[in-house]
């Protein structure tokens, strides 16, 4: 009888309130059981959503890092200032990529014509209003390459400063 009371959570001691609640919830879940599928089905859009969420996460972390560099006054040094610019550019790139992926869903394949080749492929803007924005957004390297360049210059500046300090015997 004691066992049953413990399982059902009917146990009115003020010292065991939390345990009683947990036991009650577990009991409720057990009683409300249905088919227990071990694997969940992942339909095709899930990959894109995961990718987009990753872009959003990436963008958010870059914003956070740029903020931290600012509030912690790292940006007084040239190296960290360049890294902060790099973060902001990567933030911008993530927004660009996020938008590109999203708009890409609304651009039909007919917009792009021609045989595969550097100069043979064409875009027909009249087919969709999203065609040209999509093409422009696909020029994302114009953002991410400067971002990585700023990062490179930033780290290099920090390194040169350290080398100069070591050379000065600091």
């Amino acid at each position: 009888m004691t066992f049953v009371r413990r399982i059902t959570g009917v146990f009115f001691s003020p010292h065991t309130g939390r345990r009683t609640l947990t036991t009650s919830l577990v009991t409720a879940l057990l009683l409300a059981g249905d088919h227990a599928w071990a694997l969940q089905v992942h339909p095709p859009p899930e990959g894109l959503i995961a990718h987009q969420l990753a872009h959003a996460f990436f963008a958010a972390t870059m914003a956070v890092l740029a903020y931290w560099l600012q509030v912690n006054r790292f940006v007084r040094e040239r190296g960290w200032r360049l890294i902060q610019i790099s973060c902001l550019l990567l933030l911008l790139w993530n927004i660009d990529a996020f938008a590109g992926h999203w708009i890409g869903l609304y651009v039909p394949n007919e917009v792009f014509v021609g045989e595969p080749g550097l100069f043979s492929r064409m875009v027909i803007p009249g087919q969709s209003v999203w065609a040209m924005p999509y093409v422009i957004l696909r020029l994302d390297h114009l953002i991410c390459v400067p971002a990585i360049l700023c990062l490179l210059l930033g780290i290099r500046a920090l390194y040169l400063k350290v080398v100069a300090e070591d050379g000065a015997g600091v």
Partner: protein
Amino acid sequence: MEGYSLAPVVLVDCIGSALMIVLSCGCLRFAFLLRRARPANVLWTYLLAFSLALTAFSVSRSVGHIAGQVLGFAGKGDVWRALLPYSGAVNTLTFMVVGSITLFFQRVQIINRGILNDQKELEKASAEVMRLNRDLQSLVEARTRQLSASEVRYRALFEGSMDMIFIVDHLGRFEDLNQAGASTLGHESPDAVVGVMSLKEFFAKNDDYERLMQELRVYGFVRDRECLFRSRDGEEILVLLSMSVKAPEPNVTRGYHGIAKDITARKQIERQLQRADRMASLGQISAGIAHEINNPLGIILGYSQLILRGCDKNSQDYEDVQTIERQAQNCKRIVEDLLKFARSADTRKTVVDVNQCLRDLVELLARQFESANITLETRLHPKLPPVMGDTEKIKQVFMNLLVNAKQAITGSGLIGIETTTLETGRIRITISDSGAGIPEDLTEKVFDPFFTTKPVGEGTGLGLSVSYGIIRDHGGTIEVKSEVGKGTVFTIQLPAGD
């Protein structure tokens, strides 16, 4: 329908992807160099990890893009479409990794700041320790110099002292002794005493040592105690000893340090001065008495001789007056002796050969001494300088001493006569005997007038007093040393003449 070429997009995509790989590898390189330059800086470690993740992101994405373009141009669009989900998934993964690493920045920089602060504190503390160490070192050096100077100063005081300074342990064993101390105790070097001998061994009287130690234990010090030491060669030395406990703290082995001043010579001079003073007083009294008695004696003698001239030589009166005259003559002799003692008698000084005087006396007394089984041993300095004096009086002194020596010997014995020169320009005459000796308390009185140990009637007690007066009159000194049962030594010092 009008279209636009996608060539710019493709070119930007391909060139941009290639640049991404190159630039991210550059980031990785500098991040690596940075970390290698400052391996202890956790921020650079973080930057390396961040660069590594970004490089992975760049490579993953750029390789995918380039592969997509190449496969598209090659007409393998279906292959690219098959690879596209994997490429996208890897890209997603790299975004998450980069983002995740980024979020550690704040924690890392806090840790790094803490480490840097700790490092600064450590450096500050280290500098402080170094400064203290330097200060301490210089303090120790200064103190060592002071101690060294002090040690030199006190060592010089210790070594240069003319008095004996010593340290003994609780058993009285010498722990340290200065050169003057070693010399006082008859040793050439302190090394012969320190760690080898104890203070007790130098005390002539064991009771003195025990009493001294007892007082040290009770009071902790002893001040200006006159003690009799016996040196290595057996000579007795009178010292003024002050001692105190070295380490009165509990649980520390006790020891004593002390200073001993040799006052033998001073004491001797004091005794001589006292004696001279006493003798001077006695001399004045004696001279006064002698002068006062001399005149009545002269009258007694004169009248006695007048009466004798008028008396029948066979009468009783003649014999009686003759007795009066004889006794008056005795009195006159005593008075003359007293005057000699008091230096009131005339002295005719000439060059005196002391050796010759002694030879004359020895020759005179030899037979007498021989019959009394007394051996006379003479060691006369062959080049003894002469003295200025009265030959007869000097002979009288020697005669007195030799007669006294003979009388001191019962049965057979030895009388020694020795002359020698001293560095002080004086000569020394020593007359010793192997007789009964004089008790210590009487040696001070032997030169006093009328002092005698002989039976009544055998001596007037003026012999040594007269000798004392004569020697003093010649600018010399006469000393006596005696030990009961061993004999007596009279030492005369006289200034050598030109």
